[in-house]
């Protein structure tokens, strides 16, 4: 939750007096509020945190960071199914733990 993820603006519109954008995060598309970066244009990149664009970023750095976050599994953490993640409580990563008590695995 703490890390901001870079994304590319594909569309901008005014909604209820709020400047909103459609932003592509390497395939995952989300609605993002542009009120803190009102000058952002379609095609530009920004770092986005919990649905808000916070700072502009150049394309090259944005792409590199996205690739890195994808490799680290951070995009899955940010955009994956949170209930599944919570239910597993890290099961894919810690699944090989023999010593984890059964009752903690529900």
């Amino acid at each position, binding site marked *: 939750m703490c890390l901001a993820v870079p994304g590319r603006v594909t569309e901008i519109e005014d909604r209820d007096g709020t400047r909103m954008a459609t932003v592509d995060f390497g395939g995952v598309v989300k609605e993002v509020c542009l009120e803190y970066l009102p000058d952002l244009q379609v095609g530009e990149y920004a770092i986005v945190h919990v649905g808000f664009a916070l700072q502009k970023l150049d394309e090259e750095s944005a792409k590199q960071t996205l690739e*890195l976050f994808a490799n*680290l599994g951070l995009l899955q*953490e940010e955009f994956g199914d949170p209930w599944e993640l919570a239910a597993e409580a890290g099961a894919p990563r810690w699944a090989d733990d023999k010593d984890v008590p059964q009752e903690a695995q529900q």
Partner: protein
Amino acid sequence: MKYLDEFQDPDLARRLLDDIHSVVTRPWALMEVCGGQTHTIIRHGIDQLLPDQVELIHGPGCPVCVTPLEVIDKALEIASRPGVIFCSFGDMLRVPGTGRDLFQVRGEGGDVRVVYSPLDALHIAQQNPDREVVFFGIGFETTAPPNAMTVYQARKLGIKNFSLLVSHVRVPPAIKAIMESPNCRVQGFLAAGHVCSVMGVGEYPDLADRYRVPIVVTGFEPLDILEGVRRTVLQLERGEHTVDNAYPRAVRPEGNPAAQAMLADVFEGTDRAWRGIGVIPDSGWRLSSRYRDFDAEHRFSVGDIDTREPAECRSGEVLQGLLKPNECAAFGTTCTPRNPLGATMVSSEGACAAYYLYRRLDITTAPLEASPVA
């Protein structure tokens, strides 16, 4: 240096490392403030690639970890109430309160929903006018502006059934508290890049001066961390202590003024308890009096809650850099990610979880089975 192949640009990584190796003459202890940076460091074995004299100490910068137990308990209490829709970011679901977590509250019938953005919670409130919708507003200076904007919008749109359970914390007072702690060993800071994207670097020169400590604004990629370490060590070796921005592609010196203005409108400074650490003066935000109507604590009067931290959990020391996770007696035995005793083990950004995840089980200073468990 087997890990180097995993770097995006192994040649550059090697050059940075060579540079660090060549300038270090004495031992230095640096703290990376942000949990995201800790994650990168442990995952890529950066701490092991650095010269032995350079020690990285993990800081308190994991919002999930430092949210006080009392606030988690308040969240659990509110989320259990009939008629309430409790909205949260996904990483809070498994953070243990006293005896249970949000995941369990949902299992018991509570209407707990996970949102990507606080604005999603506001939409849920619009769609459910007969229900009370509460959003769990935690986090540092990066998360506070989105939450502030959401409350501002709620007021502007006249939405009455929305409120915020707020527990925001700020980095600079934490740096101050760490430097003033009697056992402090930190000699330089890698400041959290995204926090500075919002706040700029204006709060840091005073701290650098007062505590004679270099503060280098650092990003999250492995190469960013190496560059941050390199610049901090260079300053230390030269006897300098200035604020330096090693993450200019995302951090402007002035930060994001629009976000800062919104923060100043919606929030006001307050003392905050940090989980495991205790109260740090003026280290957080709460809703300012003009937005009191949107404060879930007022709306649901959840004042007197009896909280109990597991006695054996030493996350407070971990968060202050006084103890490495695997020096805790419970680490990997009674405390694992599936059965966590402290938030630093539950959050993926927590230092205990990072050590467990990347199998840093081998460098304990004391044998686990010989350690007393309270």
